[in-house]
């Protein structure tokens, strides 16, 4: 694979962060915190790691597939898809407005290119990803299936049903990632319902587990490249990706308070000032 152009990828990450804060400001709703925290991961996946075609086809044969289980971080996904050419960037302005294809939580219903399953009600994405990874094997398609979940989402029982199933059935073309930001709506995950030793849990379930910093582009790319190297050896792969909720906007960082709150006009200006981008468009 070609060497990553870090300068270009960093600019993209800044651009996407600008999109995120403007989208949630525009409709005065949505989830900026997790979206900002996962920006490097989305940039790495769509602009370096995955083989994918913006001329979207639902079956995605011969392509890498990506499922977002924590659908509330839709702003980062929509912006990434638009910037990757799946649809016009101008459409981002319709986010969460009536008659938009950019629903509050991702959906296939309005046929937005890039989305393969609805998500929002948590805990379901890993099962769907595992099913599609099985079909890749049945179809002799050697590409990968990626899936992103939240850490609060690990409180859902279905996640562990899927964890058990994927390991038991050696679904080793599946590379899952947890956005490990330690925050959920009601407060720190440790206080709401502690996950204790999350790494030990996934190891015990039979997954290959690695950890990396999700807000360092180099680490994310190296981590995902390494995940591909760990894959196809009999075990599904889990990335525990440490991130800062709200990363890139100082007043949103590290707090659950910006999980699902939109900035006002003044807060938007402050955010954009911190996300300088010479080629903003």
């Amino acid at each position, binding site marked *: 694979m070609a060497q990553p152009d870090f300068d270009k990828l960093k600019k993209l990450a800044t651009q996407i962060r600008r999109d995120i804060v403007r989208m949630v400001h525009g409709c005065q709703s949505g989830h900026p915190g997790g979206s900002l925290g996962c920006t490097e991961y989305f940039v790495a996946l769509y602009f370096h790691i995955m083989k994918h075609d913006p001329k979207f086809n*639902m*079956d*995605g*044969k011969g392509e890498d*597939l990506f*499922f977002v289980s924590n659908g509330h971080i839709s702003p980062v996904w929509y912006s990434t898809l638009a910037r990757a050419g799946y649809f016009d960037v101008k459409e981002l302005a319709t986010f969460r407005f009536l008659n938009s294809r950019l629903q509050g939580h991702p*959906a*296939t*219903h309005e046929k937005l290119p890039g989305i*393969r*399953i*609805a*998500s*929002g*009600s948590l*805990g*379901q*994405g*890993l*099962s*769907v*990803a*595992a*099913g*599609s*990874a*099985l*079909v*890749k094997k*049945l*179809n002799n*398609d050697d590409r990968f299936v990626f899936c992103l979940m939240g850490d609060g989402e690990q409180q859902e*029982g*279905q996640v562990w*049903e*899927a964890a*058990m*199933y994927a390991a*038991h*059935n050696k679904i080793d073309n599946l590379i899952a990632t947890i956005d490990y930001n330690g925050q959920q709506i009601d407060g720190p995950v440790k206080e709401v319902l502690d996950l204790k030793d999350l790494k030990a849990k996934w190891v015990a379930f039979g997954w290959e587990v690695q950890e990396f910093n999700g807000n360092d582009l180099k680490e994310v790319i190296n981590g995902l490249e390494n995940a591909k190297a760990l894959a196809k050896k009999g075990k599904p792969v889990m990335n525990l990706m440490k991130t800062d909720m709200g990363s890139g906007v100082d007043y949103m960082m590290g707090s659950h308070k910006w999980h699902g709150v939109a900035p006002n006009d003044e807060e938007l200006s402050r955010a954009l000032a911190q996300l300088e981008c010479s080629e903003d468009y």
Partner: protein
Amino acid sequence: MTKFTATDKKDTRSGFGAGLHELGKQNPNVVALCADLTGSLKMDAFKKDFPERFFQTGIAEANMIGLAAGMTIGGKIPFTGTFANFSTGRVYDQIRQSVAYSGKNVKICASHAGLTLGEDGATHQILEDVGMMKMLPEMTVIVPCDYAQTKAATIALGSHVGPAYLRFGRPVWPVFTDGRPFTIGKADKMIEGKDVTIFANGHMVWQAIEAEAKLAEKGISVELINLHTIKPLDVDSILESVKKTGCAVTCEEHQINGGLGDSVAQVLAKHQPAPVEMVAVNDSFGESGKPTDLLKKYGLSPDNIVAAVEKVIKRKRG
């Protein structure tokens, strides 16, 4: 003397198993998933002959529905199998988001529905499943009446596109629809009559056939319509029949709220008001017992249908 004769006695779940096996032969894209009830769902033949297309999910129904939704991506046609209770109530949100709202071509196949599950009792005797499934936009809902129709419906689902719920049961039951055509969404008029229309599905179609014989002896002419597809509903057949008979009785092994009766009554109230009586479980849970004893105790016997017909005809004459 009933107008239909039972050519055999078999369980409807075996009709599903036979239909699924046939589909396995016909279409390499058909895959099957089961949550630890392979024998109960009669999926053994499919598993034996197409092991690479059979997926044992363990006792994890939520994951099974998600896997099935994911398997449609790449062109497979997944049929999930477990008891009706675990196929619907336990996984309602998974079906709603990952299957129905996402428009996935998943066939949810549900056995041991209703009171006729018998001795296992109310924990397993789901009587709300049809209501839950028919409420979901884009979901097709089918309740076949015997082995032959369950097999035909299963095979028909292989070429149907979109989410679907197929409900069948556990007990050995008369087989009487051999050779009759089956089309999803097209009601089957089994007996012509003029005094009352009975709309029935599932095991209740045979109960209605027995009731019709008793009513014929009393000089009452019954039109019997097998309304195997609750959604999409064959509105034209309902209106055409009730236009002639002027009243209706609905029969289903389901709660009175949310099932076939509701669907028929809604159509009539909107287009062509007529008296309707509903033979169904009256807002109650079931209990352990023999299937026929349960049907009798909970008001789903042929005699209950006879009484409902006599009542609705009196209401018609006002």
